[in-house]
């Protein structure tokens, strides 16, 4: 164990309660409930810090095995805070607030030896910084994980393939069409065509806010793939503004049958498959 950490270890061992109190005051936790929750976390962190120092862990190498328990505690802390929606700044501020009480304790202990004090303070400072950095890293990972999961859920939500009639499938497209969305819709639709042996698919784009050249290209790709499979395709739900945009952009939708509403498309589909709908009354 390097000597600059001896004073730190002594502090953590002997003054744990005082340090925790000073830490929570420094972190400005006024709310009683929040303070109590934070107190448990603070104790946990301090005791793990003590254990790591006792087992001779070198704070300059935080990724070594001696620090694994403390890393885990910090990871849990950031993950719960990320899930609660607290900001990364708050989380790291909480940890950085630990500096002040430890600083003052070291100052008292090493007042007689300014050189040792300077060295100790510097190592303490870098150690706490590293811990805070680790917390922020984990926090960010947790948030990214949440975002990724939500994206996936959104993707799955937005690609239902429904059977409208015997041999007629429909996909109501909702939201912005990008490559990954189109790919998913295309795969789901083609798979369903094979499963049901449907000869006609209706792609309804009522829920697509804008159609630009890229979206049109994606749509045309889907239509081509459906044709290659041996089925046919109708695009429905083209709003007047979108029709204007398509013409202004010079997008060639020739060869693709288009209808204004899903009802019109279904009527065309029924007509094509030889069905006639009659009304009794």
């Amino acid at each position, binding site marked *: 164990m390097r000597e600059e950490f001896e004073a730190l270890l002594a502090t953590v061992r002997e003054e744990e309660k005082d340090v925790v109190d000073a830490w929570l005051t420094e972190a400005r936790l006024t709310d009683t409930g929040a303070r109590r929750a934070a107190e448990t976390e603070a104790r946990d962190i301090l005791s793990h810090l003590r254990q790591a120092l006792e087992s001779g862990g070198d704070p300059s190498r935080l990724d070594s095995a001696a620090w694994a328990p403390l890393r885990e505690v910090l990871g849990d802390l950031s993950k719960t805070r990320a899930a609660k929606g607290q900001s990364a700044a708050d989380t790291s501020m909480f940890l950085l607030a630990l500096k002040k009480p430890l600083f003052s304790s070291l100052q008292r202990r090493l007042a007689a030896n300014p050189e040792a004090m300077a060295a100790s303070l510097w190592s303490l400072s870098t150690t706490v910084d590293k811990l805070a950095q680790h917390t922020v890293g984990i926090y960010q990972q947790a948030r990214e994980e949440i975002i990724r999961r939500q994206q996936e859920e959104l993707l799955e939500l937005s690609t239902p393939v429904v059977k409208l009639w015997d041999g007629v499938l429909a996909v109501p497209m909702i939201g912005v069409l990008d490559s990954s969305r189109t790919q998913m819709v295309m795969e789901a639709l083609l798979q369903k065509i*094979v499963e049901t042996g449907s*000869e006609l698919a209706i792609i309804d784009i009522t829920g697509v806010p804008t159609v630009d050249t890229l979206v049109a290209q994606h749509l045309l790709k889907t239509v*081509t793939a459906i044709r*290659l*499979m*041996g*089925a046919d395709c109708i695009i429905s739900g083209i709003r007047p503004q979108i029709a204007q945009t398509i013409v202004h952009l010079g997008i060639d939708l020739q060869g693709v049958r288009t209808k204004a509403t899903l009802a019109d498309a279904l009527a065309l589909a029924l007509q094509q498959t030889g069905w006639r709908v009659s009304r009794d009354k």
Partner: protein
Amino acid sequence: MDRIPILRMGDTLLVTIQVDMQDQTALTLQDDLSNQIAKTGASGVMIDISALEIVDSFVGRMLTSISGIARILSATTVVVGMQPAVAITLVELGLSLDGVRTALNVERGMELLRRSRQENSFGH
């Protein structure tokens, strides 16, 4: 070397591709098929690719050119049973197989050939 068999069913030539297509296999098939159409005077060609899971641009082009050759020899070509993954690959390769007729399965393909035969005979 693999040689893909060509079966004759009445007026229709039936080709079932069940192996991964090598470029040479594709060329041989194209050659054999042209000879067979000319020899039998078939009016329809059905290519079943339901067992085909991997395509490249060469096979895609081969399908287009067989269809073109058959048309010149006055036969209609229909490609049946394309797998979704194959369709997506062809689209991503920029091959839309213009002029090739497609059907979901062999039954629908036969129906399509029958209809096109009727149209042709009306036209005469």
